[in-house]
């Protein structure tokens, strides 16, 4: 069961069992985005506050499988309090790690191409991803990539909707 251990690394199971930044912020003032995976019913609710070019606060709600929920928890720990431009770069790096295989999955079920790599992904520096690199085992299980990227797409959508710019 080596493949399974590669997928379900201890750090992933830890974030699944003890999710960080769990809950919802009052909206308004927080901005709230829901992400759904129509295939399996997983859902993630990202509520966020952007202030002075920073992702000042963020909480994660919803429920779903270990990959969708641990990815959301890992994401929250990595982006909370960070400058928006840094968050956007991290989203891009993370999706790069996932999209190498995702590009082969055919049309994205959201229909907006958001999960499909637009060009050859650049070399991903896993060091920059820190704990998030634990999720790289997911790319061997293509149907689970949508689970891993669910919260990241919701976060990216939220940043776009609030028109968050770097300070």
């Amino acid at each position, binding site marked *: 069961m080596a493949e399974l251990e590669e997928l379900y690394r201890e750090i992933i*199971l830890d974030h699944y069992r003890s999710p960080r930044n769990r809950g919802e912020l009052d909206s308004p003032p927080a901005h709230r985005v829901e992400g759904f995976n129509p295939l*399996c*019913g*997983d*859902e993630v609710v990202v509520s966020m506050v952007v202030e002075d070019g920073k992702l000042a606060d963020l909480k994660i709600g919803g429920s779903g*499988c*270990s990959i969708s929920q641990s990815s959301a928890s890992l994401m929250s720990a990595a982006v909370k309090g960070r400058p928006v431009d840094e968050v956007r770069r991290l989203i891009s790096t993370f999706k790069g790690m996932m999209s190498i295989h995702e590009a082969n999955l055919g049309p994205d079920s959201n229909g907006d191409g958001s999960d499909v790599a637009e060009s050859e992904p650049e070399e991903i520096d896993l060091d920059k991803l820190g704990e998030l690199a634990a999720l790289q085992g997911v790319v061997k299980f293509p149907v689970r990539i949508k689970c891993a990227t669910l919260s990241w797409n919701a976060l990216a959508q939220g940043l776009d909707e609030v028109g968050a710019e770097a300070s």
Partner: protein
Amino acid sequence: MTPDRSAAAPASAPLNVEALRKDFPLLTRTVNGRPVVYLDSASSALQPQAVISAMSRYYETTHANVHRGVYATAEEATALYERARLVAGRFIGAPDAAHEIVFTKNTTESLNLVAQSWGRSNLRAGDAVLLTEMEHHANIVPWMILSEELGGLDLRYIPIDSDGRLALDDLDRLVDGVKVVGLSTMSNVLGTIPPVRHITSVAHEAGALVVADGAQLVPHSPVDVRDLGVDFIAFSAHKMMGPTGIGVLWGRAELLNAMPPFLGGGGMILDVKLDSFKAAPPPARFEAGTPPIAEAVGLTAAIAYLGEIGMDRIRAHELALTNFALDRLDEKLGSDVRVFGPPAGEDRGGVLSIAYRDVHAHDLAQVLDQFGVCVRPGHHCAKPLMRRLGVQATARASLSLFSDEHDIEVLIEGLLEAGRLFG
């Protein structure tokens, strides 16, 4: 042919599963180093070699468009296509198969056809439609679309009880004033087989028609539309060991005759002028465009295969194995496992929707895949039912005529591994 599949085998003779498994080429492959344990027939069944060969042979020797050419192969293709209609009709006891069997793409398209054709011409804003809480989206959403188009239908639902059976105590009140009842004849999540004949007679007394979703029942049990009493029934070939791409709608001739076309195009008309058309009689009226011809040939072969074994024996085998699985899951996993739906019995089919500890269905299915076990995780296109059950997703293992006790043991082995992994 194995002796086991002789038509003379008594209805009570158990299946020789070991022999039958050899009929399915896909069962010979391995996944992740393990033999495939296929427990996803409720999603789509596997095909025996007889079906695959029949379709290949058709393409190699006969293919032509139907109802058009006058050359020999075109005549043969047309004959094969029309023969499939008679075979499908006979399989469900249709009194007038030649006129009452409509080929569609799948169950979903069949149900949309009824909603859009019969529904649009017979329902008005405010009319009541009675569904059940255990319907598949395919027998809910078409009525919701129609409701939006007509300016609002009164959608009602027969609830389920705590065992996952339909709660029928209140049926008389629910059915009052209803024009049409949409009824699953076997739940794809719970395995529940409702008392279709009873519900149909109550519906008819109230002046309502019954549109049955037969996608799960028709492949696994003897079905006779005259016994069920329903007015329409829909099912798909690919769930009964035929190919994807062809579905069946049976409807009473007098209803089909009065219904307007669903899709327009070639094959469904008698005449077309610059400003008007005259529709062909059923079933051609509802079969616009080139139909699934090779798939009809495959359906004929699938029905022949099932018929040779005998639907009574298939049902008995799957019922016994459902009993075994429920007992064995309880014995090995106890209160860690929950299987939704009624206890094993005559009103239950071989669909086991499983919740195991607090491991998400998606993760269960992932671990099971490492054991070669194919199950379906998710909401099974029945989100209202999942909300009612209070779960987001289940891992569904569904049985087939080739399923055996070993399959259940491997399933349990995989569940135990998931338990260890998620601790």
